[in-house]
């Protein structure tokens, strides 16, 4: 029986999104994208109402041009896609510049800053990143140094986005800041994932990447760690294993070079989210986006039940739904209870917000360049 990447996707718009993703990754067959395009204006209207939620409209514009398929698209849809693609590319350029500003503020003061999530993708895969709409710039300053880093940024003109809330106290990052001038939202993470496990240690390994738009090389964690960060965010956070943008990110990272899948499994297990990470990686494999070995996939029996539903990408989550999803993504029974409590609104009020704690020293307790 031949492999069918669309076996797990029945919704026509979701199939189009998957075709676009496969096209950008270079795994689509000849004619695959054209076959997935809506056939009439009504179907296009339906697709355009939902596609932006999957974050693939800039990529659709680019792949239509690359495959010379624009003639199959209504003119007003083409123009809308073009504007979305330009806006996404411009936003990525602004976010990248904002990342440079953060690095220039923090690194000379001795902070070890790692670009993660979309910021890491911008550093590692600029052409891919500009196709991928994102809302903020995420950097990881391991452990309590993140609070000092957030404070220093505020001293240098970065403003708090919202009033600090109890919600922030239990999240994995400091209260979000707004970059002066361009208004980019900056999140300084103490740890890269929302997990009941303490994960304040620095990355297992990292590289320094030079980019022409940055005055200094940017640190990014190892690809394996980035894969776990993206997958764990989807699985443990408020999205879902079926979140297409995350699946796309993970696949792009997996195709970047030779992935040490044993390390992926080890890192995921270390934060108690191997189940959730496996759920995401199975979807990467089922959609034919990258080769993923069985050791980091759910069982073949469980894979046979996987269906990508469009609601995964768009529906707001209730508290009960969030607790359920986190529990389903975590490995141990104790984690089930702890993550359940973490999701309750009252839980955050019981402990002081790490961001509000005053540390004994205003200097970060680490050495610049460590681990290079």
């Amino acid at each position, binding site marked *: 029986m031949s492999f069918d990447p669309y076996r797990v996707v029945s919704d026509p718009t979701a199939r189009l999104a998957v075709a676009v993703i496969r096209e950008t990754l270079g795994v689509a067959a000849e004619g695959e994208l054209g076959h997935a395009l809506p056939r009439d204006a009504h179907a296009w209207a339906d697709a355009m109402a939902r596609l932006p939620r999957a974050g693939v409209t800039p990529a659709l514009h680019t792949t239509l041009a690359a495959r010379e398929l624009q003639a199959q698209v209504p003119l007003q849809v083409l123009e809308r896609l073009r504007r979305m693609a330009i806006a996404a590319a411009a936003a990525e*350029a602004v976010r990248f510049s904002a990342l440079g500003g953060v690095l220039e503020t923090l690194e000379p003061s001795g902070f070890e800053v790692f670009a993660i999530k979309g910021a890491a993708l911008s550093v590692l895969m600029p052409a891919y990143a500009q196709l991928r709409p994102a809302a903020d710039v995420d950097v990881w300053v391991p452990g309590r140094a993140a609070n000092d880093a957030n404070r220093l940024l505020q001293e240098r003109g970065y403003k708090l986005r919202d009033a600090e809330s109890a919600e922030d106290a239990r999240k994995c990052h400091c209260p979000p800041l707004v970059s002066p001038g*361009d208004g980019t939202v900056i999140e300084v993470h103490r740890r890269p994932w929302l997990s009941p496990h303490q994960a304040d240690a620095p990355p297992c390994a990292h590289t320094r990447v030079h980019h022409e738009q940055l005055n200094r090389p940017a640190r990014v964690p190892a690809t394996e760690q980035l894969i776990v960060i993206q997958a764990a965010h989807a699985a443990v956070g408020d999205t879902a294993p079926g979140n297409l943008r995350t699946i796309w990110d993970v696949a792009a990272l997996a195709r970047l070079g030779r992935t040490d899948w044993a390390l992926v499994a080890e890192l995921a297990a270390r934060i108690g989210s191997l189940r959730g990470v496996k759920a995401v990686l199975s979807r990467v494999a089922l959609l034919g986006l990258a080769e993923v070995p069985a050791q980091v996939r759910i069982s073949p029996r469980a894979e046979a039940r996987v269906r990508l539903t469009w609601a995964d990408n768009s529906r707001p989550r209730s508290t009960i739904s969030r607790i359920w999803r986190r529990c389903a993504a975590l490995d141990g029974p104790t984690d089930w209870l702890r993550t359940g409590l973490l999701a309750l609104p009252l839980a955050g009020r019981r402990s002081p917000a790490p961001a509000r704690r005053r540390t004994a020293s205003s200097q970060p307790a680490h050495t610049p360049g460590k681990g290079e």
Partner: protein
Amino acid sequence: MLKPNPDFVSREVAGEMILVPVTHQAADLESLFTLNQVGAFIWAALEEAGSEEQLGRAVAAEFEVAQEQALADVREFVAQLEEIGAVTRT
């Protein structure tokens, strides 16, 4: 000497080159500039060719047009770039 402003960066979107002022709000599409093929070439060449005359010669060679015409086009384009603050003259 012409110098590109580092607060402007270019991005290619499906064959179309845009110039982005990175100090502006990202969502502000009105602040973006679309460059045609010649404009994109001049922007890329600005870093190395420091004068309008040098740019004019480069454009004439690349697009096989008369040097006078190329220089006139370069001057007009550079004036537009100066107006938006994308290049400075030192």
